[in-house]
C-alpha cells in the first residue's frame, strides 16, 4: 500500500489498475506492475492489445447473452443442437464447464450474475428479461436452471421458475451430485454430467 510519492506516476497508475482486479491485493499488484516494467516492449504491447481486443471484439450474443466474437454465437448457430432446451448459467465460464462435461446438446442462456439479496442485486442487474423474451418465440420447451447450488443460485432459480413457470415451460434444476455451496466452475466433469442427467422439475 505504501506507494510513496517517489514512485513514478505511470507505475502508480498500473499498480492501482492491477489492485482493482479480483483477487489481487496491494502486494501482488505491485509485483505485477514491476514485472511488466521488466518485460520487453513487445510483450507489454501484446498484453495491452489483448486487453483492448477483449473489450473491442468480444460482445454478447443477442440470443443467449454468451460472450462471442460473432453474433449469434457458435452455440446458437449450431443446427445440430437441440433448440427446445435452454440451460441457464450464471457466467460464460459455466458454459465451458458444461460443454466439457459432454452431457449436454441444447442451447444456453448466460445471466451474467445471480440475484444477490445480501448485495442488493435484483433482476434488473442480470440478463433475465432477455430469457423471457427468448421464450416468447415458443420454441423452447424446457429451461434447465444450472445456477450454482448456493443461496443466490437457488434464489435465482426460484425467481426464474416464478417468472416463466406459469407459461407452461418446464423448469428443471440441476440436482443430484452438486452439494450446496459449490461453484459450477470448479465442479468435476463427471459430477456435472450426472447432475445434468439427474435434473428435477422445480
Amino acid at each position, binding site marked *: 500500500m505504501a506507494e510513496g510519492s517517489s514512485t513514478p506516476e505511470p507505475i502508480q497508475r498500473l499498480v492501482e489498475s492491477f489492485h482493482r482486479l*479480483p*483477487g489481487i491485493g496491494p502486494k501482488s499488484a505491485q509485483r505485477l506492475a514491476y514485472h511488466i516494467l521488466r518485460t520487453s516492449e513487445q510483450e507489454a504491447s501484446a498484453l495491452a492489445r489483448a486487453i483492448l481486443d477483449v473489450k473491442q471484439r468480444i460482445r454478447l450474443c*443477442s440470443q443467449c447473452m454468451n460472450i462471442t466474437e460473432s453474433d449469434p454465437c457458435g452455440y446458437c448457430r449450431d443446427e445440430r443442437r437441440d433448440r427446445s432446451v435452454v440451460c441457464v448459467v450464471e457466467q460464460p465460464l459455466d458454459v465451458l464447464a458444461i460443454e466439457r462435461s459432454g452431457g449436454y446438446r441444447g442451447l444456453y442462456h448466460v445471466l451474467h450474475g445471480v*440475484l*444477490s*439479496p*445480501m*448485495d*442488493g*442485486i*435484483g*433482476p*434488473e*442487474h442480470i440478463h433475465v*428479461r*432477455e430469457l*423471457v*423474451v427468448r*421464450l*416468447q*418465440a*415458443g420454441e423452447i420447451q424446457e429451461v434447465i436452471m444450472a445456477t450454482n447450488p*448456493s*443461496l443466490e443460485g*437457488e*434464489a435465482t432459480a*426460484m*425467481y426464474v421458475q*416464478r*417468472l*416463466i413457470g*406459469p*407459461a*407452461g*415451460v418446464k423448469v428443471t434444476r440441476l440436482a443430484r451430485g452438486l*452439494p*450446496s*455451496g*459449490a*461453484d459450477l466452475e*470448479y*465442479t*468435476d466433469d463427471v*459430477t456435472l454430467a450426472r447432475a445434468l442427467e439427474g435434473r428435477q422439475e422445480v
Partner: protein
Amino acid sequence: MTDRSRSYSTEGIVLRRRNIGEADSILTLFSLHEGKFDAVARGVRKAKSRMRGHLEPLTRVQVHVARGRSLDVFTQAETIEAHRALKADLERMNLALYCAELADRFTIDRVEQRPIYELLVDVFHALDGGASAQAARYFELHLLAITGYEAQLDACAVCRQKLPEEETLISGPAGGLVCRACRPAASSGRILSVRAVKVLRYGRTATIHQFDNLRLDDTLERELRAALGDLVRPVLDRELNTTRYMDALERADRIPALSPNHVQSDQSNPVPPEP
C-alpha cells in the same frame, strides 16, 4: 473474549458471505458466544471442501475457529439447522435475509448479544416452519426493544401523556406513538389504525408463534410493515441491501411476465428495467 487462546468454538448463524480469490469466502457469523465476527473459509467453494454447504448464509452452524493475524479462519463447520424449507421458498428466504441484515446492522463486532441471537434463531425457526411476514415484524419490534429503541406504544413519545384509543400518529424519529397535541412536534409519521396499535402492543408480550398465528388482512399487514419500517429506519445509517433487493423484485413483478398465449415481441429491444 479475554481468552486469547489460539482457537475457539461457538455456534452461530451465517449472516453474509463474500467470495474472495479463487475459492475462499469471508463469512459474517453472528455467534452465540463471540458476537458477530468475520472469518475466512479457505477453499470452501471447491468441490472437495468439507465445510462447503455448512457455511451457507442463513444456516445455523457449530464452528471451530483459529485466530489469525488479521482475520480468523474457520477450521471446522457443522450444520445445526440448515433451514432448508425457508431456503426453498423465495418469499421466506427474503424475509430471513432481511432479518439477518437487520441483525448485522444492529450489532457491533465481537460483542456477545445473546438476546438478539436467540431472537434470530426463533425467527428463522418460525420461518422454516412456514411462518409469514409477521415473523419479520415480530423481529423488528423485539430487535428495537432489545437494542434500546423500544417503540413507545403506551404513552405519547413526546409528552408522555396517556393515549386515547383512536387512530394515532406513529413517528419513526419520535420513536413511537404521538398524541394529537404533539403532532406538530413530530417531524414525520403516519396514521396508524386502532387495530394496528393493538397488534403492536400485543406483539411485545406474545411469543413469535402467537404473533404469527394472528390473522391479519393485507391492509393491516401493510400498515404494520410501513410503521415498523419507519421505526427501524432512523436507527440505520443507510438503506438495507435486502430492502433494495425486495423493492427491485416488486418492480420486476410489475412488468408483465410470460403469458400462456404469448405473442412474438420485439426481440431487438429487451425490456429495460422500470425507473
